[in-house]
């Protein structure tokens, strides 16, 4: 539970909120169940006259908005000779509203915030109104810096992700080394059985690559000519072996750019060039033969072994999809074994959904392996891809977000989010920028804003200008949402 207190001299605003444990562990400031208590505890008044009101986040924002709007109106209203001072436009509302009582006093009508039916309004002096407005503005500004609850991306902790990724990578590496050694030492027919056998946990324990893998690739290859029942295998493998040794750590890259045509992620065997496409495809076609791969095959089995080209004579029609590892956060969905003719698409289901569509030899373990890869710490670019929202009310919000995604990179020294309220003209040009909070004011010069007067987003549908709030986070994320439509 987090409590924040604002204590100008004549009132006390206390805001409490819960911080979800995931956010706490991530070090993020995400709040939920925000509640507030506002005490009108002017020390010039007796304690019996103190008034407390309570409400939730929405009511706090409503109250803040109503009070601030009223103050603006108050400041705008001139004192006119022989006319009772009255701030216009605030007396007809039914819910929370204010009414002036001369220059010095104001009535705050509490509406739904009234603590009792008998107490529906509070008489405020000018000082109390100022303190109330100050506390509410400071509080709401601070709350606005905290992202909404829904933006927590996933419950998996980054640490757990990293650990799992490392474990899986070690497993994959061990399995790979084992397979390569097996391929070299027992060439040809035996290879098929080797690859089919699941890598046992004992295999995974092997911490280092066998020394012969690095030191003597050639000697192991030389005896190859003798067995030779399968003609193509030795020739295809031998030229590749040196390149395998030069890449001792096939840990997949943490960055998965969104290139649609890149090779599938689960193939950490680098440089096995000749049949690279086939590696990915293997699982698809030899349904009868390769399906027996044990379902309990551990993650290390996920990368197709270098000997698999021997298994598959190749003629398989290359299914168009599995090669394309679409978006990073998504999970590759391989086409089902049985009906290769069915249209296959790279879906982007959440990781939980992937299990039911799980196909052949990439097995549950391998998908979890993929899932773990996908959950590795993200780069700024990857984070920004998550920032897109389906809930943008107008297309200009997306365009503004895109602009900042392309033009803003967080300085290393930035510790807090920066927020700016952008007012757009109807022609899509920038009218004004309002920094929210002191850090945003200080960093104003460092943020590259679009030039004024020149449209940088598309023309607005409506006739009135709009306000769009942009939140630039230290981790590179960019959030944008519609503030007001006029």
């Amino acid at each position, binding site marked *: 539970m987090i409590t924040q207190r604002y204590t100008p001299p004549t009132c006390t605003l206390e805001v409490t909120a819960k911080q979800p444990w995931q956010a706490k562990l991530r070090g993020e400031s995400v709040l939920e169940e925000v509640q507030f208590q506002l005490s009108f505890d002017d020390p010039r008044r007796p304690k019996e006259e103190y008034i407390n009101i309570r409400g939730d986040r929405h009511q706090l924002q409503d109250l803040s908005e109503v009070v601030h709007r009223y103050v603006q109106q108050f400041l*705008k209203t001139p004192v006119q000779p022989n006319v009772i*001072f009255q701030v216009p436009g605030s007396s007809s509302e039914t819910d929370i509203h204010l009414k002036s009582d001369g*220059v010095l006093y104001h009535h705050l009508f509490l509406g739904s915030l009234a603590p009792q039916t008998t107490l529906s309004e509070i008489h405020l002096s000018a000082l109390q109104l*100022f303190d109330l407005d100050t506390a509410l503005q400071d509080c709401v500004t601070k709350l606005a810096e905290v992202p909404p609850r829904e933006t927590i991306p996933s419950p998996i902790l980054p640490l757990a992700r990293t650990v799992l990724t490392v474990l899986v990578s070690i497993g994959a590496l061990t399995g790979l080394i084992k397979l390569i050694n097996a391929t070299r030492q027992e060439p040809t027919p035996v290879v098929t059985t080797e690859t089919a056998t699941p890598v046992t946990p004992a295999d995974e324990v092997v911490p280092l690559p066998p020394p012969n893998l690095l030191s003597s690739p050639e000697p192991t290859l030389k005896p190859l000519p003798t067995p030779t029942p399968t003609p193509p295998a030795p020739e295809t493998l031998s030229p590749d072996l040196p390149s395998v040794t030069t890449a001792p750590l096939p840990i997949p890259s943490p960055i998965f750019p969104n290139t649609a045509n890149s090779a599938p992620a689960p193939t950490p065997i680098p440089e096995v060039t000749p049949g690279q496409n086939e590696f990915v495809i293997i699982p698809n076609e030899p349904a009868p033969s390769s399906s027996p791969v044990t379902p309990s095959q551990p993650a290390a089995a996920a990368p197709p072994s270098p000997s698999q080209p021997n298994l598959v004579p190749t003629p398989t029609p290359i299914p168009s999809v599995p090669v394309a590892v679409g978006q990073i956060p998504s999970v590759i969905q391989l086409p089902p074994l049985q009906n290769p003719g069915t249209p296959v698409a790279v879906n982007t289901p959440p990781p939980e959904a992937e299990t039911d569509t799980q196909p052949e030899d990439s097995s549950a373990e391998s998908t979890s392996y993929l899932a773990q890869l996908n959950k590795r710490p993200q780069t700024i670019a990857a984070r920004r891809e998550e920032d897109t929202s389906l809930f943008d009310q107008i297309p200009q919000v997306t365009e503004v977000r895109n602009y900042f995604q392309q033009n803003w990179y967080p300085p290393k020294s930035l510790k807090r989010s920066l927020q700016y309220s952008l007012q757009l003209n109807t022609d899509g040009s920038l009218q004004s*920028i309002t920094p929210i909070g002191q850090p945003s004011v200080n960093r104003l010069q460092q943020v590259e804003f679009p030039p004024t007067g020149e449209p940088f987003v598309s023309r607005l549908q409506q006739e009135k200008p709009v306000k769009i709030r942009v939140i630039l986070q230290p981790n590179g994320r960019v959030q944008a949402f519609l503030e007001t439509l006029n």
Partner: protein
Amino acid sequence: MNWQLLDLQPEPQTDKLETITRQLYQSVFALEALLENSSDTWEKVAEHLNLTSVLSGWLQQRNQSSLQSSLNADEARSLVLVICHLAGQNQALIRRGVNLVEQLTQQNQPLNQVTLLRDYLLGFSQRYQQYISLDSRLSTEQITSLALKSLIDLLFYSHPNSPKPFWLTLVQ
């Protein structure tokens, strides 16, 4: 000066500049009366805010106790920043003044029985009368009301985020 970065937008209409100037001068008079400002206070604040070049003409006039009838838009913006800065620096004194007004009004006591308020009301009245033309002179009561409203306005302008709302009240 990049006004857009300071968010002092929109641009005021030319025919509104005279009204804006008059409203700004009310705050200037209120601050001078409350703080017993000497003219070099304005210069110091303008220099501190790097606004001397924009306000040089106005500062010169203020030194000679004569004020032009209409500021240009940049001068008006600069004066908004200077007033808010000075109000923020002296928030405690402004609070004390407003507090005294509230107390004395509640007690039905005359405001001029307290030195702070008496000096303030007198100083404001003198400056205002000197500024406006003879044919639009106000009664003492009217000037007192204006002085009190200006004092309360200063309280709101003393908030760190006040320049933008202040500007909006002027131009809208």
